């Protein structure tokens, strides 16, 4: 098992490095850090432009730039200068990531739990009214644009809050500044409720259908039949033999969807005004802030690869057949 884990870890590292190069190419292509500067009125002098170009290490070949950035980051911990004033990328990453992590992890947990429950119910009561209802709800959430749903929910809750005069469920921002201790915590929770629900919903929809299909596969399997033939109770067979095996494909699916969830987080944060990774990205792109966008995509790649690694390991724990693979 340990050997398996180590092997997986070692494979991830070169994948990550190549990924950073790919991302570097992408950002070099897509972000022009000098655009904003050049578009200023009155236009700055060539010397000013050159100075900026030097700070950003732009006037070199791409491999050289990549090497510079890579060594700066991984040997000196330096994310590079941002062209947006007053921004230290490393620090910005820290605060943004902390906020987004709260949202994403909670949303994933919520989505997984709901997906498992509805997938199991749907599969065990196949073709019943419950099954149809759950499936239709799933289809609805699959077809719902995240940002539209977010805006809708926000407006509904604003109306509800105003009429009930109860403002626990917050509709804007990640927290109220100046609080500490328990009130800070409950304040954070209040701010988390809506974005978490929104972000969880689209993942829930696809995972629940997936879990249903996976569950149906397992329910028809021979070992389920043998388990029942042994005289085990229905519940035990369902949980120990059915669910346990049916959960395995879901772990891979969740990991594969990590990138998509990050995308959803960008939208959700935008609607609810969170100063998380989403805002960092959008502002960075709009400003053509090369290093910020690069930092964002690098961190995103780390997260995705990390989650894939966790899923691989979890798969190895859950399914002994692949441990020697």
């Amino acid at each position, binding site marked *: 098992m340990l050997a398996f884990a180590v092997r997986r870890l070692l494979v991830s590292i070169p994948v990550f490095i190549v990924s950073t190069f790919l991302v570097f190419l992408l950002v070099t292509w897509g972000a022009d850090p000098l655009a904003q500067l050049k578009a200023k009125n009155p236009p700055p002098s060539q010397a000013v432009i050159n100075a900026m170009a030097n700070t950003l290490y732009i006037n070199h070949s791409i491999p050289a730039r990549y090497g510079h950035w890579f060594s700066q980051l991984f040997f000196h911990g330096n994310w590079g200068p941002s062209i947006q004033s007053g921004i230290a990328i490393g620090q910005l990453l820290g605060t943004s990531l902390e906020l987004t992590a709260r949202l994403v992890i909670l949303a994933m947990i919520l989505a997984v739990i709901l997906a498992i429950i509805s997938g199991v119910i749907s599969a065990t009561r196949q073709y019943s009214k419950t099954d149809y209802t759950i499936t239709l709800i799933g289809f609805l959430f699959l077809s719902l644009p995240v940002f539209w749903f977010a805006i809708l929910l926000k407006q509904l809750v604003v109306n509800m809050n105003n009429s009930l005069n109860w403002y626990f469920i917050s509709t804007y921002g990640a927290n109220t500044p100046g609080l500490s201790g328990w009130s800070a915590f409950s304040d954070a929770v209040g701010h988390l409720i809506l974005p978490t629900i929104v972000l969880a919903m689209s993942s829930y929809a696809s995972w629940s259908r997936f879990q249903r299909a996976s569950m149906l596969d397992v329910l028809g399997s021979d*070992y389920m039949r043998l*388990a029942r033939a*042994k*005289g085990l109770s229905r519940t035990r067979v369902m949980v120990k033999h059915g669910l346990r095996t049916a959960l395995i494909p879901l772990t891979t699916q969740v990991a594969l969807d990590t990138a998509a969830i990050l995308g959803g987080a960008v939208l959700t944060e935008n609607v609810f005004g969170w100063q998380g990774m989403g805002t960092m990205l959008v502002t960075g792109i709009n400003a053509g802030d090369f290093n910020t966008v690069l930092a964002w995509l690098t961190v995103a790649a780390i997260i995705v690869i990390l989650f894939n690694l966790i899923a691989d390991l979890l798969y190895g724990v859950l399914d002994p057949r692949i441990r020697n693979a």
Partner: protein
Amino acid sequence: MTQSATATDTVLSVRDLTVDFPTGDGVVHAVRGVSYELRSGEVLGIVGESGSGKSVTSMAVMGLLPKTARIAGSVRFRDEELLGLTDKEMTRVRGSKIAMIFQDPMTSLNPVYKIGYQLAEAVLAHNDVSRQTARRRAVELLDLVNIPQPDKRVDQYPHEFSGGMRQRVVIAIAMANDPDVIIADEPTTALDVTVQAQVLESLRAAQRETGAAMVLITHDLGVVAGQADRVLVMYAGKPVEIGTVEDIYYNPRMPYTLGLLGSLPRLDKREQERLTPIQGGPPSLVNLPPGCPFTPRCPLAQEICQTREPDLEPVDGSGFTAAGLRIHLSACHFKEQVARQDPADLFTATATDATLPAEFGAAPGAVEIVDNNNGTEDEIR
């Protein structure tokens, strides 16, 4: 209450069992009236081709059919009626009084749990013992089915076992709680012939150890010959002949049985003799025409066969049970004519069921091979 157990005690009594499945195409009459008695310690072989209803019968006994199945008749284990029991009540019976072995060993065991766990689970389900005791019993069981190094193997996973070994594990699970009846549903069908012998040996061991009666379901007459005391031949959801092994093999009284025997390769027949397969395939169980279902394929078919389905009736000259009933029964209007016939005389030694190139059968489900039943080439639709 129950009489004292004697060697001829009836352990399982199936009476007029019928199973229907409502489907989109109509009601499938999978089992159309099966009756048999299983006595303590005996082996009853149930023989038939795919679709004859032999597996469904056993699943009905175990109560493992899907909820949509409509079951009627009677299944009595000793004095207890099993049909109509709730699932909870059936879990008491399954695995401890009646155990079952399934066909495909590669998929019968849960791949994520150790072998020992799956064995112990069977023990713990019906006995209030400690985990260690259950584990010890697991090792013991593995040893009984001749798994080498059972104490090491007990901690391994199914994928570390070969097919034959897995099936033996399944047999071990079946005997874990000393059941009175073991139902083996095609236990060797998915295995190589060389491995079959090992598995059959394990089945015999299981029977010896537990003293259980066994229902051995198979389409392989060779397997039945070596293992069974009595044989029940099924066709199109109904038994068509029942008798001792000698009765069936040496004095078959139903053309289907005769045909089955004729299609069996035998070492003691002359080399030059060709096999005589039964042409055609089993009928649809949705819209069964009246009369004997074997009529389209039967060389002795007459008009009466098309109008009246024959009942199981005693064969003259056969033996009697302790209760005075004939052992050998056959469902054929012309059972006397079948007597002492050679399969080659009744069935022609040609195989006009053309095996078409797989190319034309490329998309599964889209093509039906239709047999014209008159010796001409088959159609593809």
